[in-house]
């Protein structure tokens, strides 16, 4: 019996090792593809940077309040464009590597994985964009509300931030095809619920309270308005 067990173990070990051996060329091809494309990406990024510096794109775009600088203040347009070029080429290398890996392994899982990658890339882009927009809008609302002397400035800013983040999360999940119907439904219910709750609060439950609050707010001039009456700033 021990002989049979030993033989069975040896056979399974041999199968696993041979499976790994069949995967090795694929892994090697993947690594090589990524490294090769990373080198191309680096060279291409260098070329693009040189070209953009040559045409002084930062200087040209710096005229006035350009959108790139407003939304992404810490990066110059040249840095942003070269980074986008670099990571696009690396991504292509990643896809080529995966394709090579899939061809060598003829695995159904890897084929599915390959088909899913565009969704993941789209979701990551959405997530990044959503975060940037949420941060920018929440800061804009916060600063404007403080300058208007609104005491609930922080609340407004947080509200805008989470609204954009929740919307982004729903879009990301939808893009990843994760719980598509449930996410749509939950999002619809959540937003519909918020709007309905506000409508009920203003229209029925807190009508007097809200109207008193609005009247008080309207009657109280903003700090700037009061300041303008007594002071001339320019």
């Amino acid at each position, binding site marked *: 019996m021990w002989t049979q067990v030993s033989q069975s173990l040896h056979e399974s070990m041999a199968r696993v090792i041979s499976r790994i051996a069949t995967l090795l060329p694929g892994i090697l091809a993947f690594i090589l593809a990524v490294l090769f494309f990373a080198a191309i990406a680096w060279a291409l990024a260098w070329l693009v940077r040189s070209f953009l510096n040559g045409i002084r794109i930062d200087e040209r775009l710096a005229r*006035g*309040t350009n959108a790139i*600088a407003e939304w992404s*203040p810490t990066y110059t347009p040249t840095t942003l464009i070269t980074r986008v070029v670099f990571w696009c080429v690396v991504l292509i290398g990643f896809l080529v590597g995966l394709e090579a890996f899939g061809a060598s392994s003829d695995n159904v899982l890897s084929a599915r994985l390959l088909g899913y990658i565009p969704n993941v890339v789209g979701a990551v882009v959405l997530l990044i964009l959503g975060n940037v927009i949420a941060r*920018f809008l929440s800061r804009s609302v916060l600063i*404007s509300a403080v300058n208007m*002397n609104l005491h609930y400035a922080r609340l407004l800013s947080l509200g805008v931030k989470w609204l954009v983040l929740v919307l982004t999360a729903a879009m990301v999940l939808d893009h990843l095809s994760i719980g598509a119907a449930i996410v749509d439904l939950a999002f619809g219910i959540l937003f519909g619920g918020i709007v309905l709750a506000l409508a009920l609060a203003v229209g029925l439950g807190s009508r007097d309270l809200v109207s008193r609050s609005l009247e008080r707010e309207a009657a109280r001039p903003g*700090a*700037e308005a009061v300041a303008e009456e*007594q002071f001339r700033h320019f």
Partner: protein
Amino acid sequence: MAKLELAEETKAGVEEIKEADLLIAVAAPVEAEKLRTAATRAILGLGESSVGALRTVVAFPGVSGTEPVAKVEMDLDEAQTHDRLHFLPYAMPAGSPAKIPWLPTASIYQALFAMARDMGVSACAVIAPDLAALDSNFLAPMIAPVLEQRFELAMPLYALGKFDGLLNSSILAPLARSLYGRRVRFPLAPDFCFSGKMIPDMEVALQRTIAQGQSTFWPATEAAIRERGICEVHVDTHHAPAEGVDLSTVLSETVGSLFAEMTVNAPLWQRVRGSQAAITVGTPVPPTADGAGADTTPMVETFQLGFRNLQEVWSLVLPPVTLLELKRLARPSTERFHLPDELWVRIVYDFALAYRLRTLSRSHLLGALTPLYLGWVASYALEVGNASATEAEQRLEKLARAYEEGKPYLLSRWRWPDRFNP
């Protein structure tokens, strides 16, 4: 750089006049009839003085790029009320409208200076945003130093009350003085006068300003950089209070423009130490009377609200020690509210640095400065509440000196922004 070509209608008008000695350049839309009356009275009022004997052209925005502007229709023949006085309508340059209505944009100045160049004038007086300068004793005192004393730029010294022009007094004037080393009380005055010799320099500066996407032009800064003779002239001109623009917009536009100039001129102002007083001409005009005290509570409240909500933004710009001092200041006691000059100067310098480094979006950065500015206004108003206008002016001089004394801090931060700064 290529010089600006005037619009066809304007060019035709300039060619008809050929040459002049003095150009009175009205840089804002005005009513033609009022302009005719005010300009004629002002020129005739000069009598046979040296200025009154000059061949004068009054340029006013009379035609747009596409069609005549109805309200400024003027019969040019009728307008020659004086043999030495001509009226010349010009086309307002197309482009984005000014965000601050009372401050002419760089493209308007560009058109006016091109006219002055083509007519070969000896002096040019810019008038905006209304006709207050023509209605007051402005022209003779401003033009005389340029023509007779060989100054190249004459800036007005308005007689303001202690609570007037606070943005200018707290940031624009002292910062420009500290940077460029010339004490000009109103560096962004809408009315000023310059000699014909300055026109090429002004045109180059304007081309650079427009190429950078800026719309605000700083004549005194350009003259200071080029080491031209600047004088300040006491004038009795009072412009109507500005309306329709909120403080944040004005602050963003003017301070943002000054910060942008700082970035461009960094190699120049880093060499400047101290400041020189500009020669003052004329007799001081008594300032307008202000009320004794002012209600500072809303401004202190906005500052405190800003401290509670904008720390996340301020901490990106200001070092911890400044935030600590602001925390002390934000305690709920409006009577003892006092923002020290040194602290205010460091705040302005740190914001200028953040503008250059793009630490955060520039619109956010300048928006976040508004509560701090209102804090300074509240502190200043509490301090000079019962003081006279002269004492208030002395207080502002002390602030300007604090800017100069704080300049090493700016230089250090500007050159080594990553250095540890507790």
